């Protein structure tokens, strides 16, 4: 692997014929691996990378039915933060944020992390009290978090409407200044390139169609490119988690829903932070290209169609204009949807399954991009040691039987 640096950039910029090597190989799958990861999104690729790097596992494949990052990793609105209420979530998402802070160096790939701050707006007295409590709980976990009053919100975001003459006036906000955004594709590509350099086979256009289980142990996989034997298998398939689990005879507490986002035409810099509002139900940031990147909630029904309903966009736009009336003449450029896997407690499942050698990483729902490196790091540990790390130990499938749910509905960026 050629290291990217100012010198390699200069050399190729000046060369008559730039000579950039492919960032990763495109191998045919071998008949057997020690570990097979199903799903080439950020979480799957990060898992493979940390398995190779932290645990010395060398014989690994990542199987992806489409292209790398073509699932939710390449469809999300890239908001990163770690201001979660419960200790379990706070520790896991904070680990992820800390890994993100060093990730461009670690992977030698610019993931364009921009810690521009994330604001959660407050629109009524109840939310104000709830938010103050939340901010304090988060600080007790050593995670940066502050309250802003109405004027301070206006100072952060001059273009926002803080008039009291609206249906949901802005009373204040919480802010995590270390939060922000990153380039989603770069996260997938960076992990892919670094994993490939450590010998991981990344196989695209390879759909898993069956899971072989004998005597309670996983033996391998049936795929569109033939059978592949595996000692251990990690399922990291986001929107398709239930479909894959069913191949091994497992039922999950998950419903798959469409989640949409859209971007406006590019405009001059107007917003240098991320703004979210649970109450009016919209969130946005401005991309480096100048587009406003706008997200909201899921469609209410189960779907695998990677598209959402028009009325969701309509209410999302209504909410946007409530906060930013000056955006009313903006044209929207494109819209898309992903399929998110939602758990009843809005927390993920990262751990073992009743099938020996089969591990599950799913249920990140509407908010797993921010967790990508932490999720991969903890899941790699779980597979390598055959037991969860302390960070993901609470996020078992069994918690739905014991009742130890981790209710993070309130932590969702908008009420998904």
């Amino acid at each position, binding site marked *: 692997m050629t290291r990217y640096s100012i010198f390699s950039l200069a050399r190729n910029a000046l060369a008559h014929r730039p000579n950039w090597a492919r960032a990763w190989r495109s191998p045919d799958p071998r008949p057997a691996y020690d570990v097979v990861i199903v799903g080439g999104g950020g979480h799957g690729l990060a898992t493979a990378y940390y398995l190779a790097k932290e645990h010395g596992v060398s014989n690994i494949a990542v199987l992806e039915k489409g292209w790398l990052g073509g699932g939710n990793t390449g469809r999300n609105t890239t908001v990163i933060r770690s201001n979660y209420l419960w200790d379990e979530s706070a520790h896991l998402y904070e680990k992820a944020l800390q890994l993100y802070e060093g990730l461009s160096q670690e992977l030698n790939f610019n993931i364009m992390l921009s810690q521009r701050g994330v604001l959660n707006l407050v629109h009524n007295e109840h939310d104000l009290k709830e938010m103050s409590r939340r901010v304090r709980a988060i600080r007790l976990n050593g995670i940066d978090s502050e309250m802003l009053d109405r004027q301070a919100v206006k100072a952060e975001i001059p273009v926002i409407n803080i008039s009291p003459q609206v249906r949901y006036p802005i009373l204040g906000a919480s802010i995590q200044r270390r939060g922000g955004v990153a380039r989603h594709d770069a996260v997938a590509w960076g992990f892919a390139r670094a994993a490939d350099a450590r010998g991981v086979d990344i196989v695209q256009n390879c759909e898993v169609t069956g899971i072989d289980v004998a005597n309670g142990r996983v033996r391998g996989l049936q795929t569109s490119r033939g059978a592949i034997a595996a000692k251990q298998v990690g399922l990291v398939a986001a929107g398709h988690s239930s479909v894959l689990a069913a191949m091994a005879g497992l039922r999950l507490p998950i419903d798959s829903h469409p989640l949409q986002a859209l971007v406006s035409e590019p405009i001059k810099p107007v917003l240098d932070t991320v703004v979210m509002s649970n109450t009016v139900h919209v969130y946005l940031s401005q991309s480096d290209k100048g587009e406003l990147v706008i997200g909201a909630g899921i469609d209410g029904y189960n779907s695998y169609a990677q598209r959402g309903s028009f*009325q969701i966009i309509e209410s999302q736009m209504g909410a946007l204009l409530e906060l930013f009336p000056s955006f009313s003449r903006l044209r929207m450029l494109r819209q898309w949807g992903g399929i998110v896997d939602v758990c009843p407690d809005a927390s993920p499942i990262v751990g073992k399954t009743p099938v020996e050698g089969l591990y599950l990483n799913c249920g990140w729902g509407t908010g797993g991009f921010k967790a990508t490196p932490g999720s991969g790091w903890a899941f790699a540990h779980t597979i390598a040691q055959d037991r969860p790390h302390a960070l993901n130990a609470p996020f078992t499938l069994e918690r739905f039987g014991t009742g130890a749910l981790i209710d993070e509905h309130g932590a969702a960026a908008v009420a998904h």
Partner: protein
Amino acid sequence: MLLISCPWCGQRDESEFTCGGEAHIQRPPDPDALSDPEWADYLFMRTNPKGRHRERWCHTHGCGRWFNVERHTLTHDIISVYRMGEGPADDGDGDPS
């Protein structure tokens, strides 16, 4: 947007309805006999198929009544609509699903 035929009101826009999730989940007849994993299955585990799905819908902003819909989760085609307590129309393949 889906067009849904309420069994009482006829065809209306999806925005008048609320989806209540998977249908035909029976409350356990003898709750005291259930183990924790069995409770978990009843309360939380869902089929979530990629394909035909039977679900409950409520005509929230209309007559307010609940009914069942069989819908394809990839094409969003509505295959049948039937009242509470009824089964879906037999599709003739001898298989109830």
